[in-house]
């Protein structure tokens, strides 16, 4: 039977990565003022031990060897023979990195460089070998006990002699001939061992003849049903050696039987019975921990697995798709509700209402399947801050709030990189150097706060620092330099802050290793917008900055306003829509023929005719009574013209990209109640295209 273990490899990789996350989290709790409790140390040990076991089983000896070294060190720590120090914690953290990297390489089916772990291994050896010499662990010795043959047994010698005679007459094709005396201790059954099994095993090793030594059986009165009172004499012809016999048949019971094995194949004379082989049970280890920590066990260290099951994301996506279909079908039925008019169909109406409710609930539940707590992403930050803090020599404290807030898995993954960038920015540019903070009477230790919470139908993620705040003057100066705004322009604070999202914008005087290249914020905003989210900045000089990212709960569902442009239907995402108004021609101002503005309260809003952008024949070109959908892009307001407004509804977002490609101005498609397809507008790209078009036709700046 050839069982292929490869199918379990992926599970092993995932499991190991999870264990490494747990190990890292625990290690980060260690700092100069607080040591780790025994349970945490055990968790570290078990993590390395588990990875060692699995990697050995699946044939990754490079990993097995490395984790063995880590485990050896951790074993000493958990036995109080070594203490964790900052340096060894760093070594352990580096080990986590190396293991993660190596596993990622293996997952990609490439060959890792196992030798790259040698420097770290060396560090372990230093920790292992230094300090007090290793305590003498009691190594069991094979004690040479005097031969003890039961004297009240049958005379073995005579029995033996007769067998020798028998033997002489046979053609002996086996190398060895063993005379085995086997008497299990009385309590042998209590360990679950079975002498019968052992005898059967012996039988497989060669040719065997066996005799039960009856004198060991007590009389009936004294008979205990669960005690073993039998002994056997076995003659075994075999090609195996004595050690093989011991290992194969008797390995598990050496400590609970009387056993002699004599090789009698040399017929010279009865060799003295071999000394009894007994394994010494070592003295029980002293294992009271130094500190008996009463702290409750870290729940993340426990087995989360007991209540969960791994499901592939493909399966989830199929399920979510099916639920989406269900909703569409249900809404199709719902459309007929109004055409039914009779008392007997009251039940039908009621049924449809209930169906609607059920569908929504089902949808919500299914959506939640894909939700993960943001802690999965937030958890990389303590480590990052620790390293940044060391690199740039600023004291930084990281606060995390709302780490259990849940977000769609894909969104979370896509949010990860932008978040890293934003935190890096806060640390690098937001927080001032220690001496400046002291000068200004601030706590020399800067604080960065990451928080996540639900608000309405969205998720809000905020990055706050108590640093220097954004310098409006510098930003406007830079923007003028780059030609983004004119010198005399008057902007609100928010508009000024939004300037930093322009490509290539960075007011950092120096480009540091950490940030400052100016490629970041633009990409961050793009990433957030690609998630149908928005990003805002609030800042106060000398006090600090807060960056607020708003994201929809899920990527799959959208609240939208159905609009018509000509004969085509489109969905305008509500999250982008600020207001819809019915157009009155007297409020239209024409700057040029193709460039019109709408006067609404104190704003002048550029009018964008969607039918022009899309090349659709509109129902009419006169704007009176058409609808202006007012949206905000890049801090400015724009109005998109639609012929008609239809319903507001929740739609399931379908990918256009998968079978076709990305279309400019369109973020996806959806299937309406009547089965037809409606395109979902990508407001920001639409506006940008329109702006470019107009900018190309006129020379003055447009805003």
């Amino acid at each position, binding site marked *: *039977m050839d*069982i292929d*273990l490869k*199918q*379990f*490899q992926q*599970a*092993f990789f995932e*499991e190991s990565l999870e264990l490494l996350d747990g190990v890292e989290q625990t290690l980060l709790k260690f700092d100069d003022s607080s040591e780790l409790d025994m349970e945490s140390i*055990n*968790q570290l*040990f*078990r993590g390395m*031990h*588990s990875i*060692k*076991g*699995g990697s*050995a*089983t*699946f044939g990754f000896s490079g990993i*097995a060897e490395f984790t063995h070294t880590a485990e050896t060190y951790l074993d000493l720590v958990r036995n109080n023979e070594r203490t964790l120090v900052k340096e060894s914690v760093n070594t352990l953290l580096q080990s986590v990195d190396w293991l993660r990297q190596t596993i990622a390489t293996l997952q990609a089916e490439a060959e890792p460089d196992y030798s790259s772990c040698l420097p770290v291994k060396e560090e372990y050896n230093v920790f292992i070998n230094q300090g007090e010499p290793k305590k003498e*662990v*009691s*190594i*069991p010795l094979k004690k040479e006990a005097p031969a003890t043959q039961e004297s009240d047994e049958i005379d073995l010698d005579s029995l033996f002699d007769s067998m020798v005679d028998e033997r002489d007459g046979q053609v002996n094709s086996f190398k060895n001939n063993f005379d085995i005396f086997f008497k299990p201790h009385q309590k042998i*059954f*209590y*360990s*679950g*061992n*079975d002498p*019968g*099994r052992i005898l*059967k*095993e012996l039988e497989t090793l060669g040719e065997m003849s066996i005799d039960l030594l009856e004198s060991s059986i007590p009389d009936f009165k004294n008979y205990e049903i*669960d005690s073993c009172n039998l002994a056997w004499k076995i003659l075994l012809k075999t090609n195996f050696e004595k050690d093989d016999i011991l290992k194969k048949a008797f*390995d*598990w*019971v050496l*400590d*609970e039987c009387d056993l002699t094995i004599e090789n009698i194949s040399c017929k010279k004379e009865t060799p003295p019975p071999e000394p009894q082989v007994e*394994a010494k*049970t*070592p003295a029980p280890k002293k294992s009271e921990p130094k500190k008996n920590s009463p702290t409750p066990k870290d729940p993340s*260290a*426990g*087995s989360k*697995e*007991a209540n969960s099951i*791994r499901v592939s994301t493909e399966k989830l996506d199929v399920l979510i798709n099916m639920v989406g279909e269900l909703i569409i079908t249900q809404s199709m039925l719902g459309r007929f509700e109004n055409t039914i008019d009779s008392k007997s169909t009251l039940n039908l109406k009621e049924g449809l209402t209930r169906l609607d409710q059920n569908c929504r609930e089902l949808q919500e539940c299914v959506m939640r399947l894909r939700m993960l707590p943001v802690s999965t992403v937030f958890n990389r930050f303590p480590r990052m801050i620790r390293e940044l803090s060391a690199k740039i020599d600023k004291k930084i404290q990281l606060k995390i709030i709302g780490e259990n807030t849940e977000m769609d898995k894909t969104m979370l993954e896509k949010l990860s990189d932008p978040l890293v960038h934003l935190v890096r920015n806060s640390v690098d540019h937001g927080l001032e150097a220690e001496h400046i903070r002291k000068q200004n009477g601030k706590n020399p230790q800067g604080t960065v706060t990451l928080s996540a919470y639900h608000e309405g139908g969205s998720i809000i993620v905020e990055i706050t620092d108590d640093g220097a705040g954004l310098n409006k003057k510098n930003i406007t100066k830079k923007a003028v330099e780059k030609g983004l705004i004119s010198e005399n322009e008057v902007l609100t604070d928010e508009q000024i802050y939004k300037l930093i999202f322009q490509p290539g914008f960075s007011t950092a005087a120096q480009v540091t290793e950490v940030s400052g290249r100016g490629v970041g914020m633009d990409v961050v905003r793009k990433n957030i917008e690609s998630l149908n989210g928005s990003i805002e900045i609030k800042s106060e000089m000398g006090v600090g900055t807060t960056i607020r990212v708003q994201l929809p709960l899920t990527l799959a569902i959208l609240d939208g306003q159905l609009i018509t442009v000509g004969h085509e239907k489109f969905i305008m995402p509500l999250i982008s829509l600020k207001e819809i108004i019915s157009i009155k021609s007297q409020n239209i101002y024409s700057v040029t023929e193709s460039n019109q503005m709408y006067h609404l309260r104190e704003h002048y809003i550029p009018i964008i005719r969607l039918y022009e952008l899309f090349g659709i024949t509109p129902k009419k070109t006169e704007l009176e009574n058409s609808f202006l959908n007012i949206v905000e892009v890049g801090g400015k307001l724009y109005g998109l013209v639609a012929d008609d407004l239809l319903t507001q509804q929740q739609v399931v977002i379908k990918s256009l990209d998968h079978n076709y490609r990305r279309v400019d101005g369109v973020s996806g498609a959806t299937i309406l109640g009547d089965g037809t397809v409606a395109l979902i507008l990508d407001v920001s790209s639409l506006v940008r295209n329109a702006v470019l078009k107009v900018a190309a036709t006129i020379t003055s700046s447009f805003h």
Partner: protein
Amino acid sequence: MALILAVDDSSSMRQMVSFTLKKSGFEVISACDGLEALSWAKTNKADLVISDVNMPNMDGFSLVKELRLLHPYKFTPILMLTTESSQEKKMQGKSAGATGWIVKPFDPEQLINTVKKVLEARLGI
């Protein structure tokens, strides 16, 4: 059909052991630590227990001790899965009441052969 209780905190290990044994016709139930295993064992009877040593919540040795206190498990074969071939660990297992051990890494063949030998003698399979 013989029922085997497999206990290991590593899910890839559990999967592998379960798969291997099921292929040989055994029924397998898995637990992720000693606590879960013990809880199941209190109301269910396995013909054989295979358990890892290092596990959270309740380690292998403690599990063996606890199992031996349960009447149906007094004589049940319990095998420890250990990565350590040290005599010390083996003896620790024995003194806790284990029947024997299987040293990791093992290949599936080894596992099946050992399990068969142990169960054969008892159930005549």
